[in-house]
């Protein structure tokens, strides 16, 4: 048993930290987040150059063939700086889904381009009901001749406004199917949405009579449910890693401030109320990290407890992140409540991450069902 990063993973961690913290710190990228695309183009190029985009994609398709743990290392660092951009959507949601369930043709077409930074993808899931349960979806693909005709509206599709293709979870009769849709296809309309988390971009995507060929089915027709389950598990773990990184960064800011800020003649960090607050924060941050990495490993190894541990990681990390960012604002007092201080960006991101891909209650229920199923 060994719960530690390898030396290579530690090097990856260091290089990611120094790249992001020095070249793309939150203090500068928050301006880019307000730009048209929502992220600096040079950041995306840098990620491609460093090999991050193909990190966990198979070597045969231009990737580095590393695992989800390596990916988690990078995601944790991105979480620290609230790195904006379509990394999560392209790599975690789209790339790994194709690598996992796509046809040889789909892989050959898209994976090398993803790895090189030449293509971006995303995954369209939630609809107006706001529910993450596949059973609630109404977007449907109707068979017409040898094709499918896709109709419906998806929301909160991350970075769809820059995506080349969109994986869309849709109903085919009673079952679900995942379709690979060209973002420029006739009938696809992408409209950016405003959200509280200004460091991430999402869109509403309308599919109106979009024609999709049988070769654009990911996996088999009707096999969308297990594919979506995999997408959800990976999204959970990736977000948990990001959240652990963000919470860690917020904790560090808080400790630094608690040591420096003097009130009543003493650094506020010498008061027990602040000490105990910080102590609770580190408990939550480290626990979130443990859960993120354990579940990353489980996903990487295809361990039978994948669903259960991914949901634990998502539920725990998002509550931890929310609490830690809230406490950090409180600890910082007035300065933490300003627009200028980056804390509120973390606070906003925490809430978005908590609700996106299912809230903690949803994941506790998902987890418990998986536990019951494996016990039965």
């Amino acid at each position: 048993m060994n719960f530690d990063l390898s030396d290579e993973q530690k090097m990856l961690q260091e290089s990611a930290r120094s790249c992001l913290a020095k070249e793309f710190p939150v203090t500068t990228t928050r301006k880019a987040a307000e730009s048209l695309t929502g992220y600096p183009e040079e950041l995306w190029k840098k990620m491609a150059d460093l090999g991050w985009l193909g990190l966990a994609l198979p070597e045969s398709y231009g990737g580095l063939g590393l695992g989800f743990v390596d990916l988690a290392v990078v995601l944790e660092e991105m979480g620290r700086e609230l790195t904006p951009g379509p990394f999560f959507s392209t790599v975690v949601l789209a790339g790994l889904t194709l690598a996992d369930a796509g046809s040889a043709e789909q892989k050959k077409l898209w994976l090398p381009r993803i790895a090189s930074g030449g293509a971006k993808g995303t995954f369209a899931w939630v609809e107006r009901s706001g529910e993450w349960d596949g059973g609630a979806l109404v977007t449907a693909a109707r068979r017409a001749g040898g094709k499918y005709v896709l109709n419906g509206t998806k929301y909160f599709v991350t970075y769809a406004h820059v995506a080349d293709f969109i994986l869309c979870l849709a109903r085919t009769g009673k079952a679900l199917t995942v379709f690979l849709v060209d973002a420029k296809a006739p009938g696809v309309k992408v409209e950016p949405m405003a959200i509280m988390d200004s460091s991430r971009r999402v869109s509403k995507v309308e599919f109106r009579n979009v024609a999709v060929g049988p070769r654009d089915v990911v996996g088999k027709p009707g096999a969308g449910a297990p594919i979506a389950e995999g997408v959800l598990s990976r999204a959970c773990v990736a977000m948990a890693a990001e959240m652990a990184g963000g919470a860690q960064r917020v904790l560090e800011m808080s400790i630094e401030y608690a040591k420096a800020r003097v009130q009543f003649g003493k650094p506020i960090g010498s008061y027990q109320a602040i000490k105990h607050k910080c102590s609770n924060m580190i408990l939550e941050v480290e626990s979130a990290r443990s859960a993120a990495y354990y579940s990353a490993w489980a996903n990487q190894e295809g361990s039978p407890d994948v669903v259960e541990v991914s949901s634990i990681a998502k539920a725990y990390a998002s509550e931890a992140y929310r609490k830690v960012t809230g406490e950090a604002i409180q600890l910082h007092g007035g300065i933490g409540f300003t627009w200028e201080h980056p804390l509120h960006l973390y606070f906003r991101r925490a809430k978005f991450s908590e609700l996106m891909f299912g809230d903690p209650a949803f994941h506790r229920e998902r987890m418990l069902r998986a536990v019951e199923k494996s016990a039965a």
Partner: protein
Amino acid sequence: MDFKDTPEEAKFRAEIREWLRKNAPKGKRPGGAWTGSLIGEDSLKFHKDWQKKLYEGGWAAVAWPKEYGGRGASLMEQVIFYEEMARACAPSVVNVIGIALVGPVLIGHGTEEQKQRFLKPILSGDMIWSQGFSEPNAGSDLASLSTRAVLEGDHFVVNGQKVWTSFGTIADWILLLVRTDPSAPKHRGISCLLVDLHSPGVTIRPLVQMTGDAEFSEVFFDNVRVPQQNLVGALNDGWSIAIATLMHERGGVAVAIQVQIEQVLSSLFDLARRTGKNGRSAMEDPRIRQELARCYAEVQIARWNGYRSLTKIVKDGMPGPEGSFGKVFWTELNQRMQELALNLSGVFGLVPSGDPLTVDSGRWVYGYLRSRGNTIEGGTSEIQRNIVAERVLGLPKG
């Protein structure tokens, strides 16, 4: 023990209710309806007009003595006033610092000249006031403030910086705490000045808070000259006035706050009724019902604590222990209500105002962010808890 109006109270209630029925503005209002925001010309004018109307009706400051244009209302009548204002969905007054803080300070400590000059325009809303207490290095430890005022001839010369100055961008005047004796122990060298914000040397910079709004400002004083007659109370006696002011703030605000959290609760319930969750109304989800019930219960308890506190103040001139934790109680409860409201709509709850998908015009997104400030401003929850432990429970100072 009796929770019904006395005949006098009932009469007072009928009077304000009738006046509001005739005079409260109807129809659409400028600005964010739920924030009571004063940002923007339209909104400021709307609120100033409303204050003028209240002033003309004699309702601008019910708590002030009659001789100064108030109604000499008892505390219970003030409660009734706020209850009826809320019932009529009447807008708040624009010059709240002037009416709730500066007026009472002047009535208590001001010279006759100061009263003559300032009280009427405060009431009418013609002279908007702000409060200059906190500084970058004097937050919880307010008494360590370092903005200096030096008497040169018949003027004070003021230098320094204030922060978290409410209404800074729309105010005409500021109630300022300054250090006038740097050699004295820190509570003893502070004085209280009335400063015209249009004076040369005053720079006001809006302080944007995490909501994106700028309710507050930073105010810089660079050799600002303030006439000696604008000193309130005795020289170096400003700390006791500041404390009295903060007390006013807490006492006056407490009544209005209860009305506000009852409105939040009521909107939260409305939202729950309208929201679908797992194929049925959120109001039918047993888990959400428990959370709603918890909020409902605590809002009632806050009200009952408030009633006890009011009774105690009326009888003994000061609140009992139940009055000391009111701020901690409502601010933390409000944070939970805001959070629950956001969560009800799932990820759609995070769409802010402006987007067509926003829930309740974005009030919950705004409220979720804004509510984080409540546990900081006006004394952090940590300071509040220290005060309760030391002053109410008598635990030794750390």
